[in-house]
C-alpha cells in the first residue's frame, strides 16, 4: 500500500489503505472538505471560476462593509438639535441615489464583463478533448462508459471515472430515469443529466489524485448518497487501468466459487452484468471488475470484503430506498457468493 504521501490525513489514510488502486497520490486538502471548490481547484475548467469567486467575494465584502458603515453613520451621526415637531422637505437627498446608483452600475458592469470572460474560458477546453466518456445517471449511482471505435475495446464501469492527468476529457451526460446533476466541484461546475437529452461537460485534472463528485439535483429518496470519484492518473497508469478494465471476467469456477457463481446467476444477474459470462443485467452497476473499485453503493462505503457483505445483506438499512434489495442468504451462501465476487478483479 503506497499511501506514503505525507499529506494524507487519518481519514485519507483509511481510504487509501482500503483502496484497491494504491499508487495514487491523494490531494491532501481534499480530505478536509473534499468538495471545497471555493479554495481548491485542480483544473482549467474550474480554476477561472474559483478566481472569479475570490474577486467577487472580496469586492462585495468591501462594498458591504462600506454600506454598513454608511448605515451606521446615517443612524448615529450628530444632528443639530431641531424642533422635534418639524419635518424636513421631500426634495433633498437625491444625490445619494444618483451617486450610489451610478457607482453601483459601473461596478456591476465591470463585474458582468469579468463574468462573461470567465464563462468563455470555462465553456470549452483550450484544445480538443483526448477522451470521450458517457456518464449516465441512475437512481442512485453512475454508469460510466468508455467509448472506442473498436467495439471490443469499449467497456463499462460504475461510480469511478479514471482520466489521464493534464488532458481535457469530454463527458456526455445522460440519465435513464430522473434528472441528476454531475458535479466534481474541484474540477468543474455542475451540469444536469436530463432524460431524453445528452448534455456535455468537460473536465481536466492538473494533478494526479482522487476527486470527489456528488449528484446535486434532488433525485429522490437517496439523493444524499449518490457520489462518485474521478481518479486522475498518469498516461501510463491510465492506459494500464483501461487495459485491465477491457478484459472480460476470467474466473475459474471451482468449489465454493462455482457455488457462489450459481447464486450470483440466480439472484444478482437480473440487474448486474459480469462481462464474459451469462450475467448481463443492465439495471445495476457492471461488476466485471468490482474489486478494482474503491467505493461501493454510490460512494457510501469503501470497497472491502466486509463492507461488500454488509451491503449485499443489509442494503436497505445502509441506503433505505435504494434499488438494491437486502439479500437473504445463509452464511454458507454468503461465503460462497463472497468467494465468487472476490475473483472479480
Amino acid at each position: 500500500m503506497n499511501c506514503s504521501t505525507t499529506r494524507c490525513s487519518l481519514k485519507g489514510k483509511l481510504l487509501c489503505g482500503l483502496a484497491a488502486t494504491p499508487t495514487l497520490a491523494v490531494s491532501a486538502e481534499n480530505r478536509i472538505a473534499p468538495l471545497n471548490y471555493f479554495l481548491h481547484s485542480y483544473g482549467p475548467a474550474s480554476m477561472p471560476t474559483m478566481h472569479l469567486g475570490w474577486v467577487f467575494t472580496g469586492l462585495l465584502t468591501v462594498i458591504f462593509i462600506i454600506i454598513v458603515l454608511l448605515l451606521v453613520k446615517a443612524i448615529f451621526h450628530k444632528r443639530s438639535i431641531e424642533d422635534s415637531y418639524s419635518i424636513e422637505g421631500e426634495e433633498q437627498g437625491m444625490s445619494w441615489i444618483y451617486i450610489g446608483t451610478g457607482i453601483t452600475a459601473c461596478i456591476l458592469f465591470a463585474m458582468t464583463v469579468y463574468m462573461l470572460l470567465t464563462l468563455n474560458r470555462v465553456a470549452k477546453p483550450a484544445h480538443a478533448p483526448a477522451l470521450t466518456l458517457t456518464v449516465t445517471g441512475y437512481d442512485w449511482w453512475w454508469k460510466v462508459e468508455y467509448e472506442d471505435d473498436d467495439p471490443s475495446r469499449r467497456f463499462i464501469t460504475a461510480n469511478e471515472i479514471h482520466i489521464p492527468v493534464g488532458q481535457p476529457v469530454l463527458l456526455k451526460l445522460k440519465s435513464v430515469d430522473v434528472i441528476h446533476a454531475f458535479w466534481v466541484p474541484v474540477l468543474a461546475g455542475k451540469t444536469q443529466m436530463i432524460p431524453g437529452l445528452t448534455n456535455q461537460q468537460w473536465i481536466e485534472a492538473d494533478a494526479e489524485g482522487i476527486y470527489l463528485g456528488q449528484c446535486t439535483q434532488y433525485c429522490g429518496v437517496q439523493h444524499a448518497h449518490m457520489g462518485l470519484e474521478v481518479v486522475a492518473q498518469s498516461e501510463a497508469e491510465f492506459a494500464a487501468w483501461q487495459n485491465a478494465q477491457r478484459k472480460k471476467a476470467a474466473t475459474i469456477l471451482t468449489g465454493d466459487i462455482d457455488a457462489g457463481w450459481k447464486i450470483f446467476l440466480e439472484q444478482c444477474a437480473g440487474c448486474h452484468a459480469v462481462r464474459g459470462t451469462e450475467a448481463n443485467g443492465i439495471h445495476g452497476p457492471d461488476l466485471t471488475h468490482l474489486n478494482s473499485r474503491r467505493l461501493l453503493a454510490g460512494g457510501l462505503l469503501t470497497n472491502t470484503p466486509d463492507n461488500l457483505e454488509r451491503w449485499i445483506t443489509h442494503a436497505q438499512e445502509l441506503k433505505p430506498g435504494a434499488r438494491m434489495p437486502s439479500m437473504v442468504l445463509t452464511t454458507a451462501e454468503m461465503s460462497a457468493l463472497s468467494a465468487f465476487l472476490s475473483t472479480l478483479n
Partner: protein
Amino acid sequence: MTDADQNTPDLSLNRIPEIGSAPAGSAAEARLAELWESAPGWRGWLSTVDHKTIGIRYLVTAFIFLLLGGVEALVMRVQLARPDQTLLTPEQYNQLFTMHGITMIFLYSLPVLSGFSNYLWPLMLGSRDMAFPRLNALSYWIFLFAGIFLYASFPLGEAPNAGWFNYVPFTELHYNTGPNIDVYALGMVLLGISTTVGSINFIVTLFRMRAPGMSIGRVPILVWGTLTASVANVFAVPSVSLAFFMLWLDRQMGTHFFDVLNGGKPLLWQHLFWMFGHPWVYAVVLPAMGIVSDALPTFCRRPLVGYSAVALSTMATMLLGFGVWIHHMFATGLPPLALSFFGATSMVISIPSGVAVFAWIATIWLGRPMFNTPFLFFAGFVVLFVIGGFSGVMVAAVPLDLQLNETYFIVAHLHYVLLGINVFPVVGGIYYWFPKFFGRMMNETLGKWSFWVMFIGFNLGFFPMHVAGLLGMPRRIYTYAPHMGWSFVNMVTTIGSFLFAAGILIFLVNIVVSLRRGATAAANPWDAPTLEWAVASPAPVYNFAVIPFIASRHPLWEDRLDEGAGRSSLEQGYLLMEGRETIGTTPLDALPDVILKMPDDSYTPFFVGLFSALAFVGLLLHSRDFTVLMALACSLSLMVWLWPRKNLIQRVPDVEYDKGVAHG
C-alpha cells in the same frame, strides 16, 4: 341573502353626493357604522366582506403557516445538526423540506403581504373597501382551503416529496406513485385561483378606488409594491397553474407533456415553473420593501428620499424579473450565449435594488431616527437586504453559479432574501401597524428583545450556510458523512435557527401580552404621514366617515412640509351613506367619477370557495360523482352571488372637482 332591500335605493342616475362631515358620535357616523357592521356571531364571521377582517385573517393564517413551516425547519435542523443522524428517514426528510418550501413560499410569504395590503390599501387610499369585497373574501377562503388541502396528506405520511420546484420526471407517476404529487398539483391550481382573483382585486382597487385628489404620484410605496406584484402575478401564475395542471393530466389522464418515453420534455417543466417562479420571488419581496419605504420615514421624521425613483425602481425590478428565469437553469446545458444574456440581466437587476437601498440610507441620514422597535427591524432589514442582494449577484454570475447552484449557498441566499426581505419587514410592519389593527401599542421592551434575538439568531443560523455551500454541501440531502467537513457549520446553523425561533416566540408573546394589556393607541401614535393614520385606532368598520380629498403624498404632515398650496381635507368630504357606498375615481388623476355601491356581506364567497375546494378533493380521490356534484354546487353558489340586484346600480356624481384644491 342578507342585503335584500334594506335600503330603498334612489335610482336617479345623476345623484350628486352630499359633502359634509360626520364627526365621531354624530348621527351620520352611527348610521355609517350600522351600514358597514357585519352581523354578530358566526353569521357575520362567515359572511363578512370587510377588507380589514379579511386582512387580519390573512395575516393570522399566514403566520400559522409560518409557524408550521418553522417547526418543520427545526426538525430538519436537528437531523442535520450532526453527521449520520437517523432522527428522520430519508422519505420523512424529503417530505419535510418539500412542505417547508411550499409552506413558506406559497402559504406564508405572499399571503402575509396580501394581509397587509388588504387591511391597509383602502385606508391608505382613502376608500371604504376594496373594489370587489366579495372577491376579496373568496380569495381568502380559497387560500385557506388550499392550505388545508396541501396539508391534508401530511399526517398520512403522503405529503408532497419532490421539493417545492417539483421537477419532472421525478414527479411523474412512474417514479412517484403515491398521492403526494397529486396533492401538490391540485393544491397549486386551487391556490392559483386565490392569487389571481386577489391580484385582480388589487389592480382594480388601485386604479378605481383612490380618494379624490390622490393622483397616481401620491400613493404610498407599499401600494406600488403590491400593484407591481399583482400585475406580475396575473402574468406569472397562469404559467405555474398550467404546468401543474399538465402534470396532473400526465399522472391521471395519460397525457405525455413531460413523459420522455413518449416525446415529452422535462425541460418544459423547468421553463414553465421558473417563468412563474422568478417573478414570484419579486412578488413576495416588493410589497415588503414597500412596507419599509412607507414606515421607515415615520421613524426618520422626514419623507422618503426619492419617492419617484423608488416607485420606478419597483416596477423596473419586476420588468427585469420576467427576463431572468433562466438563472435557475444555468446547469441544464443551455448554450453559453443564452447563459450570457440571462446572466447579465440577472446582474443588472441589482441596479433598481440599489436605488432602494440608497433611498433608505439617505432617508435615515437626512432624518432624525427614533429607535423604536419597527425602526430596528427596518434598519436590520437593510443589512440583510444587502447581504441577500450580494449573494444574488454571485449566483447571477454564470460560471460561479455552476458551482453554487444547488448547494447550501443557494439556501443561504434565498433565506436572506425571503426572511431578510420578507419576514423582517413583516414583523416590523406588525409592530408599526398593530395599533391601527387592534387599538393597542405593542410592548417596546419585548419588541427590542424580539428584534435582537431574531437578528442575531438569523445571522448565526443562515450566514454559515454560505460557508457550507462553499464547502460543497448540496441541498436536499437528509444526512452527510463526517469526513465531508460540514459538521461544524451545520451545528452552528442549527443553534442559530433555534435562537431565531426563540426570537419569533418572543414576538408572539408580545402580541398576546399587548392584545390584552397594551397601552391604548391614539389615531396616530407614531405621528405618521399617511392616510391610514387619519382614522381612529382600531380603524372603524366604515374606514372613513367622509371620503377625504387629498392634496399631497403626506396628508398628515402637510402643515409642516409646506409643499404647495393644496391642503387635504380629511374632516369634510363625500358623506355617501345611502347604503354601503364609496367613490370611484379616474385611474391616473383620481378625479371623482362614480359613486360605487358596495355589496353587502354574503355567504356566497365562502360557499364558492368551499365547493371548489371540495371539487378538487373529489379529483384527488378519483370520485367523479362527488366532483361533479361539488362543481354544480359551486356553480349554483356563483349564480346566487352574481344574481343582479337593483341596489348595486351605480350613479355618476355630477360635480366639478379641481385637482389639488380642497373643498369644504
